[in-house]
């Protein structure tokens, strides 16, 4: 079988099988069996790969080759050994979990999550591509969030899960930067290739500095360790997995992986003090806990510190010690957490204050706990002793200043470790029972003892089998970590003769043991509450959220005027030079008629600000619109004049309909400061816009488009009104889109107002007195429509050569139909308006696609001359296009009017109203 397939199988087998079990809704027992099978398949595949001679990266698939992202695995002795560790402990934890929870919904979820977590951890361990590694790094964080917070409705568990997620993800961000840095620096994202390179020391230091936050957060080093004890909110089997072999080891594993690449940086040594402080602080806090699960959590912090410290020593032999201790710790800590789960099951409590004498009820669990705790304390001949000896020996060989920190960290931390290990064994299992809970201690199911027993056997066998462990495990794995064969070293053994390390070990064990025995539970140092990491984190989180709320008030205010004003002010500042430039030249004298118009405009606008009535304001604004229309006339834009006039009429009608029944204007007084800011902003922007006109005039470059349009309109498009030709021909696609915008707006209004509940039905059309119709207006309305039709058709027909065209005709027809219906108060007449508008849109689309049928680009128009009765009739398909515009605009405006219309005024509902009364 190929390496690609096997390596991929190692990663995905656990999740695949567990999900299969969950999807097919098998009982928990079957899901567990499948998950265990998946883990064992992974183990076997990894072992098979390890037995093969092949070592190196295997590429499964390119993912984003441009960014050097690929799915590739690193088949190395160390990655395979870690994969076996992860899967073996995974299988044991899954087995224990199923026994621990029994048949329940929670168990099913946790089993699947555990399997997913196992796969993400395997991916992290085996990934060769840096970005793939980062991806799995993040997935472990996300899955652990769900695992830690898996207790439903438990606010504390959710808080702890969030804490863990935020801290570890925050640490992961610089990790991504570190990977990007390494990739851009070396041109490869493959870890295998990178490890063969020599980086300058400065580059090593930069990469390491970016990488350290990830290590410190994920592997819970002081001062970012507080999430780990909090994560004890997870069910005990989950903690057994997360905090022994997997999640918290990720940082340590990363350090081991990059050691050959970055180990030359002087910054590497900073790991020693970090680890030493963590080691001592974790031990100290473990002694202060009465909950044995929290005790184990703090012990994990301490042991992670020990590992970091050892790696920080930065020699090949230190890596050897770290590798051994990493595996030893994973085995005994997983076993201890499972034992804690067993104690919880047997006694119903985890409190040291209540436990005691459990040996009589569960003697086998006692033996397992004693072996595993002995390994943690470093008692010979257990695995923990072997690894701690190695660590001590390496620490003594280090440089002087490192030496002091390292030795004191290890010794102090280890004394604490011995003390809390012995406390765990003695207070829980020996002595007499202190609480009622222990008395009803139950015998444990054998299935709960299986996993801890296997782990205890492993830790027990390591001591006598030291030579075997060295030859088949430690030596090849270390060689694979450091990238070359180890020089000849003393083989791993229980007995090196009497030396300093052994003496220190003896001192540690005896001091630790006796201090705990003599002082007992009275020696319960509590950390100062103010320094509690979880509290500090919560406070920091609250502060962040407060800050965010401040910012969002400023930048995302519920009042649009705040940020609108800010944006306008920014634009004002940015263009001030333009205004100065424009005003430096004295303006030409104003046209007298134009000046009069502007004075009228000024008067109207001042009145707009002064008057109170809404309707008066609307009318004044439309007068301003008429003034602008007059300016268009002076600017030689007759089409705009026509359009503007008609638009003002329509808008006024809309306002008249839309303003009915509104609540009064807000009367809250605006603070003077805000009012002055607004006023000065308005005046500033006004000056700016005015000077912009001068500036634009001054540019005065001849427009080539203009010349082309003027020349091409009569020749190519056979039209003399160039504005209309531009709309229907040159830029017909624009026109098409803009017509659609109008249709959208009209239908939008219909949607907005549809389903309304009219509070009042008292509105009445001033022209229409109920029950007393005047004969004149309805009669006129019968004339208006045909007349308007004629007008619209003539505007449409002559639009190509004279002022007019589709928009103008459409507006005129829309106004006419609305007016006719206002007068007749017959809203039903507008029922088909939406359909007319849609028909117009359809015509536009036809003219878009029609020319495609003739092989011409869309919206190409044809024209020609038809000989009828001896006279030439010019025709052009642009007229068809304009007809579409007419229908769309007229129909759309009428449909919108209908939507705003009060239903009670329709004659048909008058009858209903009468019946109701």
């Amino acid at each position, binding site marked *: 079988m190929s390496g690609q397939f096997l390596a991929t199988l190692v990663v995905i087998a656990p999740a695949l099988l567990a999900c299969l079990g969950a999807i097919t809704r098998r009982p928990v027992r079957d899901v567990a069996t499948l998950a265990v099978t998946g883990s064992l398949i992974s183990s076997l595949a990894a072992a098979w790969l390890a037995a093969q001679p092949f070592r190196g990266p295997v590429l499964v698939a390119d993912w984003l080759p441009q960014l050097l992202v690929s799915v590739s695995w690193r088949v190395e002795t160390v990655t395979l050994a870690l994969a076996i560790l992860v899967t073996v402990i995974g299988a044991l934890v899954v087995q224990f979990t199923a026994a621990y929870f029994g048949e329940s919904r929670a168990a099913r979820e946790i089993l699947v999550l555990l399997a997913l977590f196992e796969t993400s951890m395997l991916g992290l361990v085996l990934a060769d591509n840096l970005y793939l590694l980062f991806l799995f790094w993040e997935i472990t964080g996300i899955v652990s969030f769900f695992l830690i917070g898996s207790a439903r409705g438990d606010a504390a568990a959710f808080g702890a899960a969030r804490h863990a997620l935020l801290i570890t993800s925050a640490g992961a961000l610089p990790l991504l930067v570190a990977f990007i840095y390494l990739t851009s620096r070396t041109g490869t994202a493959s870890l295998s290739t990178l490890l063969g390179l020599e980086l300058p020391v400065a580059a090593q230091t930069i990469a390491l500095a970016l990488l350290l936050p990830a290590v410190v957060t994920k592997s819970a080093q002081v001062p970012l360790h507080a999430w780990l004890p909090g994560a004890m909110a997870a069910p005990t089997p989950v903690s057994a997995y997360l905090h022994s072999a997997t999640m918290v080891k990720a940082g340590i594993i990363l350090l081991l992986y990059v050691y050959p690449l970055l180990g030359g940086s002087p910054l590497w040594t900073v790991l020693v003090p970090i680890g030493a402080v963590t080691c001592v602080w974790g031990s100290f806090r473990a002694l202060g806990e009465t909950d044995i699960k929290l005790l184990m959590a703090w012990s994990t912090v301490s042991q992670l510190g020990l590992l970091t410290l050892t790696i920080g020593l930065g020699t090949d032999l230190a890596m050897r010690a770290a590798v051994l201790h990493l595996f030893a710790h994973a085995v005994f800590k997983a076993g201890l957490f499972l034992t804690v789960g067993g104690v919880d099951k047997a006694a119903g409590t985890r409190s040291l204050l209540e436990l005691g004498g459990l040996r009589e009820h569960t003697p086998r669990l006692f033996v397992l706990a004693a072996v595993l705790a002995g390994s943690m304390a470093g008692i010979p001949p257990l695995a923990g002793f072997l690894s701690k000896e190695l660590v001590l020996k390496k620490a003594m060989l280090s440089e002087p200043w490192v030496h002091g920190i390292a030795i004191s960290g290890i010794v102090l931390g280890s004394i604490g470790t011995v003390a809390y290990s012995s406390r765990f064994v003695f207070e829980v299992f020996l002595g007499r029972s202190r609480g009622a809970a222990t008395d009803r201690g139950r015998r444990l199911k054998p299935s709960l003892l299986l996993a801890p027993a296997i782990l205890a056997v492993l830790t027990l066998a390591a001591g006598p089998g030291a030579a075997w462990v060295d030859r088949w495990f430690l030596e090849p794995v270390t060689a694979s970590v450091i990238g070359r064969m180890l020089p000849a070293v003393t083989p791993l053994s229980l007995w090196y003769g009497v030396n300093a390390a052994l003496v220190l070990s003896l001192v540690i064990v005896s001091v630790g043991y006796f201090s705990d025995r003599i002082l007992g539970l009275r020696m319960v140092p509590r950390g100062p509450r103010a320094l509690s990491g979880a509290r500090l984190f919560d406070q920091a989180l609250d502060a962040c959220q407060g800050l965010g709320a401040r910012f969002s008030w400023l930048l995302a205010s519920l009042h649009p005027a705040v940020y609108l004003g800010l944006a306008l002010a920014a634009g004002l500042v940015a263009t001030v030079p333009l205004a100065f430039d424009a005003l430096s030249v004295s303006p030409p004298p104003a046209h007298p008629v134009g000046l009069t118009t502007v004075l009228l405009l000024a008067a109207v606008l001042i009145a707009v600000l002064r008057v109170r009535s809404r309707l008066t304001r609307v009318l004044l604004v439309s007068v301003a619109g008429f003034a602008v229309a007059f300016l268009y006339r002076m600017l030689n834009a007759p089409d*705009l004049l026509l359009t503007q006039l008609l638009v003002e009429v329509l808008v006024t009608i809309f306002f008249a309909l839309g303003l009915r*029944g509104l609540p009064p204007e807000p009367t809250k007084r605006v603070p003077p400061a805000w009012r002055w800011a607004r006023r000065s902003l308005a005046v500033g922007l006004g000056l700016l*816009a005015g000077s912009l006109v001068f500036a634009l005039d001054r540019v005065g470059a001849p427009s080539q488009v203009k010349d082309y349009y003027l*020349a091409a309109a009569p020749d190519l498009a056979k039209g003399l009104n160039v504005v209309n030709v531009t709309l229907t021909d040159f830029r017909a696609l624009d026109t098409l889109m803009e017509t659609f915008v*109008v249709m959208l707006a009209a239908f939008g209004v219909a949607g907005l107002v549809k389903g309304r509940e009219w509070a009042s039905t008292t509105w009445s059309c001033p022209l229409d007195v109920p029950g007393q119709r005047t004969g004149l207006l309805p009669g006129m309305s019968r004339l208006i429509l045909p007349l308007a039709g004629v007008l619209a058709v003539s505007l449409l027909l002559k639009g190509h050569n004279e002022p007019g065209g589709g928009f103008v005709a459409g507006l005129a027809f829309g106004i006419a139909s609305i007016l006719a219906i206002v007068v007749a108060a017959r809203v039903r007449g507008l029922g088909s308006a939406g359909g007319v508008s849609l028909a117009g849109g359809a015509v536009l689309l036809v003219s878009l696609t029609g020319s495609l049928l003739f092989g011409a680009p869309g919206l190409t128009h044809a024209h020609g001359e038809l000989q009828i009765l001896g006279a030439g009739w010019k025709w052009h398909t642009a007229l068809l296009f304009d007809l579409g515009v007419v229908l769309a605009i007229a129909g759309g405006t009428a449909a919108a009017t209908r939507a705003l219309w009060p239903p009670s005024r329709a004659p048909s509902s008058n009858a209903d109203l009468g019946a109701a009364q």
Partner: protein
Amino acid sequence: MITVMALAVALLVVVGVELLLGRSLFKAILGLSLLAHAAHLLMIATGGVGTSPPVLDGSGSVVGTADPLPQALVLTAIVISMAVTLYLVGLLQASGRRLGASAVEPALASDPGREAADPGESDSSGASP
């Protein structure tokens, strides 16, 4: 003529911004319409004034003809700003009917900076360009 345009644009922008930045949705709509007028005039200004409309007489002479392109663009812009106004009036009607609110800000807004407002006079008092 350019001076007239500049004056008109300046006036329209001053009053438009003043209305737009108020707290009434209705006034904001009016302000937008006025700003649209100003924008249209500005766009026309990019093409220059010219001495005759871009409606040709067939003689082939195009000297002094106003630029048709900005006019065509402004023509559609006028229609679109009408459509926008139409939509905003619909919004105004809907929000007034359903929420009973005429202010731009929702009733639940808690802007710490604007607590010191005393009810009484409308903010429209005394504002002049």
